[in-house]
């Protein structure tokens, strides 16, 4: 190269090299991607709107908000402080302080993190005056839930801090924010929370805020949450909780004409206020770890029991629809039903009709096992193969919303179980099963499992004579209609005409002197119902009752389930009828019965069981 050319060559060379470097930095390399850049230059602050209130169907306030105060820390701004005083104000130990401080530093020295959560108003008042002494700490106001009525925690649910998995799923949330994690708080989260307002603030490199970013063109205002009215009748709900005191179980009451859930009781219950404030996680752990009485388990929605006798209503309807029986078909019962040749192939019956012919009406009010076993067998055998018969039976059951999720606005639920042909083919692979193999299904035992809400829905369907509205918990959301799927009736596969004779039978359960609930009759109210006793291989039988009233134009359909409550009319029957009375008349005409239920306890039964379990384990 000639000497004069060297510098020109270098100039062009460096020029090209720098342009390549710039191309790499600005166009190719993504490691300097924009979000993190923005994070340091632009601070995002949120303006949290007030969460919507929750009312019951009559406008009684169930969930409100209260202010709480979080102590926030920005570690790099912390100056030496009197830790003894600070700790005593916050009611924490010095070890806590060191632990929390280290954690905050570990998270970020620049970004604020929560130091102490949800101080009470009193603690806040003391602290506020001295806050100026503690540089790097500040108080952030937050809105917390408050429950004026200590009732229905399983329905209302609670809010808690989002975890990282939720943040990944929904980028709306930031670490430390609150989200509804159970009950209505969860299913109606989007309506209740509103939309947070965002402010972008330009910062300089000292982290000092120097004004709104781009004059605030990206800022948004907070939109407050919507208030929600539930279908719950608070008085009925509280009454149900009181009746179920010291008993484990669930009550589901539905308004048949709308599918609105009037009461959803699960006991043992707890004070919803336990799920609020600084003690929340402690209380939650306590409730969560109670594996014996399982207070967080919603027995109305999640508990799957064999339904027992109330399921005979369905067997009757299916048999009528399949023309397997008519209302005059009669069966003779000799204390049971022999369904096979073996010595043990005998289903006992306590109907007490020994030998006299039993027709549908009597079969229902006497709850005759033999009759329904017979009817069930006829359904299955009407079809060419047991497989087809089973599937036909299953299809009818599913049209009642049994054996599947109800797809409603409750945050939890269980499918229950209604077996079909395939189910038994799996258990008997060579197809060697017949109607008699599955005969227990006829009386709600065997493989059949339902949840109390499914049973309540079955009752409501019968009350409506053939259709139901999906049971739901929300009545009104401010400024928004509830989902259309709750206002469209779901028709069953059973014709309307077949319901009347069955309902007459259910009416006679109370009205006929020999009816299984005749002594639970309530003057002035025409109640239709069915007792149930579900055999429980793990201990004392469960007490079950379903009912609706009045007979014509029903206002309430109810299912009551009392764990280990012996038999249907012992606990569940009185509770169901008291609930109906309370709802329709506002008070009971049978104070002695009310008294007995309010004070009755099955705790001894539960203790006995627990003792047996521990003995076995030992």
């Amino acid at each position, binding site marked *: 190269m000639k000497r004069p050319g060297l510098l020109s060559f270098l100039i062009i060379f460096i020029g090209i090299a720098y*342009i390549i470097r710039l191309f790499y930095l*600005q166009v190719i390399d993504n490691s300097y991607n924009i979000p993190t*850049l923005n994070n*340091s230059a632009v601070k995002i602050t949120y303006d949290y709107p007030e969460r919507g209130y929750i009312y019951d169907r009559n406008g009684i306030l169930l969930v409100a908000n209260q202010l709480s105060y979080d102590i926030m820390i920005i570690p790099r701004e912390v100056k030496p402080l009197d830790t003894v005083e600070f700790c005593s104000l916050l009611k924490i130990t010095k070890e806590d302080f060191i632990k929390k401080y280290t954690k905050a530093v570990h998270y970020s020295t620049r970004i604020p993190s929560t130091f102490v959560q949800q101080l009470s108003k009193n603690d806040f008042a003391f602290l506020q005056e001295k806050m100026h002494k503690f540089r790097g700490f500040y108080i952030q106001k937050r809105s917390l839930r408050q429950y004026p009525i200590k009732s229905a925690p399983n329905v209302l649910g609670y809010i808690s801090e989002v975890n990282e998995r939720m943040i990944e799923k929904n980028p709306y949330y930031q670490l430390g924010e609150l989200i509804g994690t159970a009950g209505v708080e969860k299913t109606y989260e989007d309506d209740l929370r509103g939309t947070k307002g965002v402010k972008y603030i330009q910062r300089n490199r000292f982290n000092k805020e120097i004004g709104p*970013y781009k004059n605030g063109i990206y800022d948004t205002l907070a939109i407050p949450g919507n208030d929600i009215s539930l279908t719950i009748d608070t008085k009925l709900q509280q009454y149900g909780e009181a009746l179920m005191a010291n008993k484990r179980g669930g009550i589901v009451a539905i308004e048949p004409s709308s599918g609105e859930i009037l009461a959803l009781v699960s006991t043992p219950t707890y004070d919803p206020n336990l799920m609020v404030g600084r003690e929340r996680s402690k209380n939650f752990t306590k409730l969560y770890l109670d594996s014996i009485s399982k207070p967080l388990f919603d027995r109305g929605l999640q508990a799957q029991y064999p339904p027992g006798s109330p399921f005979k209503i369905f067997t009757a309807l299916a048999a009528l629809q399949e023309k397997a029986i008519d209302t005059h078909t009669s069966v003779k019962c000799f204390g049971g039903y022999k369904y096979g040749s073996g010595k043990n192939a005998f289903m006992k019956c306590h109907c007490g009709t020994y030998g006299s012919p039993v027709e549908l009406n009597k079969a229902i009010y006497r709850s005759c096992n033999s009759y329904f076993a017979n009817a069930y067998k006829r359904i299955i055998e009407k079809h060419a193969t047991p497989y087809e018969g089973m599937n036909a039976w299953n299809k009818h059951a599913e049209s009642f919303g049994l054996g599947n999720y109800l797809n409603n606005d409750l945050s939890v639920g269980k499918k229950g179980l209604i077996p079909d042909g395939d189910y038994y083919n799996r258990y008997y692979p060579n197809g060697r099963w017949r109607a008699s193999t599955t005969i227990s299904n006829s009386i709600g035992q065997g493989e059949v499992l339902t949840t109390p809400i499914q049973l309540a829905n079955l009752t409501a369907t019968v009350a409506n004579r053939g259709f139901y509205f999906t049971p739901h918990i929300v009545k009104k959301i401010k400024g928004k209609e509830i989902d259309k799927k709750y206002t469209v009736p779901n028709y069953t596969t059973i014709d309307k005409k077949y319901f009347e004779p069955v309902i007459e039978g259910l009416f006679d359960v109370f009205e006929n002197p020999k009816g299984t609930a005749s002594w639970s009759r309530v003057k002035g109210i025409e109640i239709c119902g069915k007792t149930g006793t579900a055999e429980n291989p793990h201990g004392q039988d469960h007490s079950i009752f379903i009912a609706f009233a009045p007979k014509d134009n029903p206002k309430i359909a109810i299912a009551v389930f009392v764990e280990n409550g012996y038999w249907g009319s012992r606990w569940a029957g009185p509770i169901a009828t008291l609930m109906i009375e309370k709802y329709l008349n506002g008070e009971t005409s049978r104070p002695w019965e009310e008294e007995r239920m309010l004070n009755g306890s099955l705790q001894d039964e539960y203790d006995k069981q627990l003792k047996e379990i521990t003995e076995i384990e030992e």
Partner: protein
Amino acid sequence: MRSKKNNIFYGIDWVLVLFYFVLVFIGWINIYSATITEDQLGLINLSSEYGKQIIWIGLSIPLIIFIFMFEAKFYEKYASILYLISLTSLAGLFILGKNINGATSWYNFGIFSLQPSEFAKAATALAMAKLVSDKQFNLKKFNTQVQALLILFFPAILITLQPDPGSALVYTAFIFVLYREGLPAYHITISFIAILLFIITLTFGYINTLIGSFLAFLLILLFFNFYRKKAFKKGWLKIIGVYLVSALFIFSVDFVFNHVFEQRHRDRFNILLGKTSDIKSIGYNTDQSVTTIASGGLFGKGFLEGERTQGDFVPEQQTDYIFTTIGEEWGFIGSSLVIILFVLFLLRIIQIAERQKSKFSRVYGYSIAAIFFTHVTINIGMVIGMLPTIGIPLPFFSYGGSALWGFTVLLFIFIRLDANRTYEW
């Protein structure tokens, strides 16, 4: 003839003048963006830096006219005197100078300060041109080499002592001039190899470098053995000698780096070589400037829209790091356009320098091309993270009156000399 001679703008290269004003204008736009604050003030406002800069730019026009008023001959005749005045002003700093940011580089005149090192470059270039254009001058002679070195040594050492080693480093630019004028090639070759070995040693450690360079020399020996046997017979001893010297150099690099350098110097190199990534303290400037440029993307965020520029994230953004503003707000398109402008500007200077009949003008022109080149290369190289942190301004862009005037003087003396090229004096 006379009327033309009286017209001070006669023979001016308007292309260079245009380049000057375009670069200064783009520079000011970015200073404005980097220093504008919430309260919108007028453009000419002494309390803001963009306002001050516009005054310096405005005052550069009388300065240019003042430069043009002197005959080209004047600059050749009084080159030595200007050089001595410049040296005196540098030396005077030790008595009268004002300490700003740890360096005594400034004379304070109340409302404004002047930095004599910015003007010393022009004086040194004039002195060098004068020396090289001497008829006795021969760079092959050791004597002459020493003379040339001394001209560079005095200002460089005075500036280093301020201490402002970055500005002193600019004087290495003259090696291009001396090479152009006949300095033997091995001076440049040796410097280049030394720099290469320096970087390799720091990156890979001296043991690896010793082994690697040994293998390289072995290859060279084999090459000569097979293809240039004649040369090999004469030169193999020389080649082994060169290797031994290199080995010694590698050892000394390691020694100097670890035992003579202070930690802050080591840090600068370590960050550049990617050996340290502590972006919070020592690498903060480089990290901030690189991320800021990278965030600009292909098209940039637009004028006054760069949140990192507006957020004041890059330290010294309006001075040494002004290129980050271009990078963020004007993106790859804008920043590469600025580089292309500089390349064209430098090539134009060289083109004009080469057409000079007077050796003095040619050497001077070549000197300023080399000086501008060094400034641009070091400054942008530092900002885009390719060179260690060396704080010297980007010509015509960086905020600061002394720097702007220094570069203006440097350029317009050359334009004045060039305007005279058709007349022999």
